[in-house]
């Protein structure tokens, strides 16, 4: 390919990219590429399985996982075309509906069940044994809406409210080692994770 042809090809690629035309076709993946967000979390296991077991390859699709945090960022990236599919928790979904954001949930990504181990964790040696024992205790949560909903429902089971506890907001759910340190140092009494 001479220099002029190479420049023409490059210009054409830029033009097609600007027109949002999918240039990712190949014989291996005739449907092209799809960019999907993930959170580096165990909860995204079906995405890892889909990739590694070749379930999308068999459908003629190449899936690329894109690490992106923050649901507002994920919606913005989708609307801008930087990603094609993303995660949305129900609270953010409801707010997206209120704002009439043009998106659709096409599948739900799992639910809690009897074996779920996410929840309120107390130190092994703590004297906190029941929900009633949470009165006056320091409870660390991420502070997001889902975490507050779950904490509220938990407290209600024992007739308690947020006024009965000291809620410490802002823990990150993917920092398990810090959670462990916080419990062991008695910096907090309970962690919601």
């Amino acid at each position, binding site marked *: 390919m001479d220099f002029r042809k190479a420049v023409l090809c490059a210009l054409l690629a830029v033009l097609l990219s600007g027109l949002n035309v999918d240039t990712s076709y190949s014989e291996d993946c005739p*449907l092209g590429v*799809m960019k999907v967000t993930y959170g*580096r979390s*165990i*909860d995204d*296991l*079906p*995405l890892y*399985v*889909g990739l*590694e*077991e070749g*379930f*999308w390859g068999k459908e*003629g*699709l190449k899936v690329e996982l894109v690490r992106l945090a923050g649901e507002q960022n994920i919606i913005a990236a*989708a*609307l801008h075309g930087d990603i*094609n599919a*993303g*995660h*949305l*928790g*129900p*609270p953010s979904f*409801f707010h997206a509906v*209120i704002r009439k954001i*043009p*998106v*659709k*949930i*096409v*599948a*739900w*990504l*799992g*639910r*809690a069940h*009897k*074996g*779920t*181990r996410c*929840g*309120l*964790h*107390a*130190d*092994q040696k703590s004297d906190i044994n029941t*929900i009633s024992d949470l009165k006056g205790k320091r409870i660390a949560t991420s502070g997001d*809406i*889902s975490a*507050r909903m*779950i904490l509220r*429902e*938990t407290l209600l*089971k024992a007739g308690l409210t947020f006024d009965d506890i000291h809620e410490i907001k802002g823990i990150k759910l993917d920092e*398990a080692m810090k*959670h*462990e340190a916080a419990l062991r140092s008695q910096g907090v009494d309970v962690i919601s*994770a």
Partner: protein
Amino acid sequence: MLEMHGASRLLFSFNDAIPGYVFAGLFFTDKYLKENPQKVRAFLKGLVKAFGYVRDHEKEARRWIPKYCGVEMDVAMKSALRHFEDGREPIEQIYKQQNIMIENGHLPGRVPVEAYIDYSYLPTAD
């Protein structure tokens, strides 16, 4: 993970608080759905196969966790997983969670969501 390290014991699980709590949904923009229906169907077909694989071959599925999550294999083998079915959830469950948000002051009132959930791209249930 905290429990596995011997650091904690579970007092009350998310499922105890809100049984069947739906954690997240997968969304596309309306524009993308309109322009790429075949791609979306192919993606969801693979995703539902992955749900089934996690259910039916849990041990084998867990092998992939360390590569993507940066945790040790022993943690990957023991951590609790969500329950994955076919991507659909009862609308009553979605509204139950919405009602809790309303009671909690996080939503001003009922928000009809049916027009924003579209299962038509999912493979037909067996």
